[in-house]
């Protein structure tokens, strides 16, 4: 799904990046160590956290798209860190639940957690 479509669905805004990028999978969490433990595909990250650690986590996993939910807006310092890494950042007033729900309903896939 094109980022432009994502923006439309979550009634969002783009802070940096490209609306021509696309995503197929998403993972929603405020726990960065869970993101680091479970995310293993080229996945968009939905989170309500807006600190440097979100960008660092995404960087380590090679994630390119982050959607900040619940009206949270990352400070400029955080945006700059993401910009240096070529990431796409979106913001939305939707809750984590609604953002995830609307994307899932429109075909964005979930990750499967393996329990070994």
């Amino acid at each position, binding site marked *: 799904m094109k980022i432009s479509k994502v923006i439309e669905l979550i009634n969002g805004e783009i802070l940096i990046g490209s609306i021509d990028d696309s995503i197929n999978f998403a993972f929603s969490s405020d726990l*960065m*160590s869970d993101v*680091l433990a479970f995310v293993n595909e080229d996945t968009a990250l939905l989170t309500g956290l807006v*600190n440097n*650690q979100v960008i660092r*986590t995404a*960087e*380590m996993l090679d994630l390119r798209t982050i959607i900040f939910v619940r009206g949270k807006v990352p400070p400029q310092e955080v945006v700059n860190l993401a910009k240096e890494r070529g990431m796409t950042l979106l913001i939305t007033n939707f809750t984590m639940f609604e953002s995830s729900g609307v994307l899932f309903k429109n075909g964005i896939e979930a990750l499967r957690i393996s329990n070994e």
Partner: protein
Amino acid sequence: MNSFITNNDGIVLKYVVGNDDFSIVGEVSSKIKNVLKQLNIDNKLIRRVSIATYEAEVNVAIHSLGGYIEVTITENEIKIKIRDNGPGIKDTKLAMEKGYSTASNKARELGFGAGMGLPNMKRCSDEFKIESKFGEYTELNMKFIK
């Protein structure tokens, strides 16, 4: 970077990790990741090393008094050693369990404290060793086969 040595054993990089400024946590792992990229190492391997190194760096920053990360890159493997100046871990077996965490509220606000870091380092690496003396130090040694 605090030191960079190339010798017969390969490339050895050493970085200091502090525990006072949470906003820079991850900088060392980021630098290490960039070095690995420049060496044209396989992306999947870089990703495993990066995840494990970052989890370890976060642990040093949030649980310890500070320490260092040493990376050794040879023809066949990447070795990561993380050593800190304490306070050490009383029961390393318990610390290795998924979900066990003593993280502070400040660390939790950053998105850490799920008790997933150490198990995740073990998952990502090909060899994992944890050694700690309570009151003195914690040392992790991880090996990644190229």
